[in-house]
């Protein structure tokens, strides 16, 4: 099953034993304990994935499902979705799951509303139950456009403060994007299933970032004498906030939604030269 994925999305050519480890206990009815014992199982065991949907537009989940050609393979053969409100109806406070199960990876879409007790409880619970937490999409990673919330709206006027997941719990990896691109999701899923942590290293290194903005290319790239005016940041920007002036990106802050895509894409921020050489043979 990996072959199809790798062919479609250029995953690594070697089979690697999954590093995402299965835990022995199925947690559905067992009372939930603290730190789970981590015992590797047979390589055929599937990673247990959770998907938590907080304050976001569901764009990242939709982007995930846009991997039409591989989605059914991913969902049936490669992973078990053990928790989630959008992809499966297993949700604390929901119909079936009274307790949150143990998860190898929990994807979190959306930022966390500080005035919403349920969201706060859910991510804290998720942190306890998950080996890895992935801030999935820019709302979870940086707050993105929910940063600009002011409250005073129905259905809950008090909901006004929306923070990145890493402001409250430790995040292990982050995938920026508004929404995350389908191809990037596919690559990340393949890398996770294969235990290719090398590919995920950049996503792990930016996990603690919670302040993405068009200013990043100004403060981190231009101001450090690194910019060459190549235009990648403007290609990355989903809102066309990034214009150019004298060969340098110039962020229109009225358009910037603080998704962090421009800086994530900048080749002068980080360059995956090893992977590039593997993929191109150059």
């Amino acid at each position: 099953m990996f072959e199809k994925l790798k062919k479609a999305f250029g995953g690594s050519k070697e089979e690697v034993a999954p590093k995402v480890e299965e835990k022995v206990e199925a947690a559905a009815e067992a009372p939930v304990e603290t730190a789970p014992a981590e015992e590797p199982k047979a390589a055929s065991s599937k990673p247990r994935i959770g998907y938590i949907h907080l304050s976001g537009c569901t764009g990242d989940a939709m982007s995930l499902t846009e991997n039409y050609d591989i989605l059914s393979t991913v969902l049936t053969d490669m992973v078990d979705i053990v928790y989630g409100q959008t992809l499966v109806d297993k949700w604390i406070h929901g119909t079936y799951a009274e307790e949150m199960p143990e998860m190898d990876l929990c994807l979190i879409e959306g930022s966390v509303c500080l005035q919403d007790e349920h969201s706060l409880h859910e991510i804290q619970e998720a942190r306890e139950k998950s080996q890895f937490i992935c801030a999935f999409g820019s709302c979870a990673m940086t707050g993105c456009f929910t940063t600009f919330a002011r409250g005073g709206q129905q259905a809950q006027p008090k909901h006004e403060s929306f923070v990145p997941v890493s402001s409250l719990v430790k995040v292990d990896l982050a995938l920026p994007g508004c929404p995350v691109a389908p191809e990037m999701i596919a690559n990340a899923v393949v890398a996770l299933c294969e235990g290719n942590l090398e590919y995920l290293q950049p996503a792990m290194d930016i996990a603690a970032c919670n302040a993405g903005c068009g200013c990043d290319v100004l403060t981190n790239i231009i101001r450090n004498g690194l910019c060459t005016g190549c235009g990648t940041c403007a290609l990355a920007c989903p809102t066309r906030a990034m214009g150019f002036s004298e060969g340098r990106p110039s962020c229109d802050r009225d358009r910037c939604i603080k998704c962090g895509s421009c800086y994530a894409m900048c080749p002068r921020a980080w360059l995956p030269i090893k992977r590039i050489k593997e993929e191109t043979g150059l």
Partner: protein
Amino acid sequence: MPLGTYKEALSARATDSKILEVSQDGGIVSALLCYALDEGIIEGAVVAGTPDEDWRPVPTVVTSSDEVIAAAGTKYSMSPTLSALKEATRQYGLEKVGVVATPCQLQGLRKAQAYPFTRFVVNKIKLMIGIYCMENFPMASLDTFATAKLGFDSLTDATKMDIGKGKFWLTKDGEDSGLAIKETHGYEQAGCNICMDYVAELADISTGSVGSPDGWSTVLTRTDDGNSIFKAAVSAGLIETKPMDEVKPGLGLLEKLAQGKKDKNGAERERRAKLGLPLPVEY
């Protein structure tokens, strides 16, 4: 390996006089784009044009040979060419796109392929033509060369701009004025000073004037796709070639310049690191 990985090195020239009249050197970029467009290998390409004829590069989407020829010629200032990929794939709806890119732009493109953070764009790139690039100049630097150093009234008076034979050249009223390359040092953009790539090592096909005689270009074919497209364009009669060992000054000069850039900019990288300044993180 100062020239990176390549399959073949050749001296080459376009055969179409319409291209050679406007091209910087051998017209290889234009000939390849025209061929790829005619053959349906690409439906369009993003290039650096100068629509206002003022030497200010503007990222441009071209979809026909006429548009390719209108955008021909090297521009010596920054063009955020990759930004036009969005226009090419979204507004123009192109499914197969070519890109003419400098080494730094190729790094952006290849990174975007390896980590496709932008949805449904990079999978449409079918041809990356790389151009040799030592450094790039802000427009104000070019103005300085024209007015303060060469005595022009204005940069826009220049009808041709070129770097070769150790000089920066501007042509006005059919007359060439040369400025020693040394005089241009210190006017390039700072980002170029840490670039280790002169010969567009990440392209499908790289080309530039160095190593070949006037009116010819030195071509390095790198990827399988790049090699086959170049060969096909030669077979179709759009490009003529000569072996590198039959031309002067030859590949040695290209190697020397490529290595020189690596040495000089490697030292700058060390200097910046010593100052505690950041460099791009490499994975």
